[in-house]
């Protein structure tokens, strides 16, 4: 990758980080719960009598276990993604070496 390409990518990543970090400072008192928790509240406001008619079959026993499963999901995903990318990089290098 060229130098300008690297700088461009780093800038783009910086923008993503800024988008994530800025709310933490502008919304100091917020709880940062899930948007769905608020949706649940909104449903109760609209229809106070509504009762969920089905509950999840298995639920993570605690927040820790839940975050374990979420990080596992992200880990599996990025594992596959970068295995594929690495495979492609290696193949390209080999092709270029064969050309010379």
């Amino acid at each position, binding site marked *: 990758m060229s130098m300008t390409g690297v700088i461009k990518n780093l800038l783009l990543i910086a923008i993503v980080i800024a988008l994530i970090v800025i709310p933490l400072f502008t919304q100091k008192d917020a709880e940062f*719960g899930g948007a*769905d*928790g608020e949706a649940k509240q909104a449903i109760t406001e609209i229809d106070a009598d509504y009762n*969920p008619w*089905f*509950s*999840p079959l298995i639920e993570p026993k605690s927040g820790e276990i839940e975050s374990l499963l979420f990080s596992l999901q*992200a880990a599996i*995903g990025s594992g*596959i993604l970068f295995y594929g990318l690495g495979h492609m990089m290696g193949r390209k290098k080999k092709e270029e070496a064969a050309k010379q």
Partner: protein
Amino acid sequence: MLMFILLPQAAWAMHIMEGFLPPGWCISWGVLTIPFVLAGVFSIQKTINEHPRAKMLLAMVGAFAFVLSALKIPSVTGSCSHPTGVGLGAILFGPTAMTVLGLIVLLFQAVLLAHGGITTLGANTFSMAVVGPLVSFATYKIVQQAKGPQWLAIFLAAALGDLLTYVMTSIQLALAFPAETGGFMVSLAKFMGIFAVTQIPLAISEGILTVLVFNAIAAYGKDELQDLKVLSKEA
């Protein structure tokens, strides 16, 4: 108050929670989603038969959706939501292929993580894996037609697909829960305020991340992208 103690603490999820959509709506959205799933299965089969080496790329776009939908990110509204990651696959493999992959992601989260739900799977698949990819695919084609630069086409496709997923979620909830006074529109405004506004910065992030990953794939996997006609031969 007792209700909140007795009810199991629902996990934070950004899709419609288990049990929170009346049965009639669950069935309707499920039925509406089925043809897209079937079309997706055929579309994936056809792609793999014609271009066996695209298999790796298919796994990669599925994995990308897997990663992004696991990341719960804080937003300007003071609550959290997560991106969907389906835009990339919709651009590369077409919208219905992503219906199948999105369904797998949602099923994983519904069964293992109590996220979204099995009863709401149809509705959630419709928003995240039917509407999202369709919007992404259409946006990409429109920007290309208009001779816009490729990075812009990818950025807008991923960001709008992400955003419209949650607009669709808001519509689904507003249809099922119209306000007593004002009906559908009042409810829609309420749910949009929760889901769609939260999603705006996340949609921008997803757009940028999708451009980064696409560029990486384009740099090393030109052959596959030419197979899929995403990049032209001479490029």
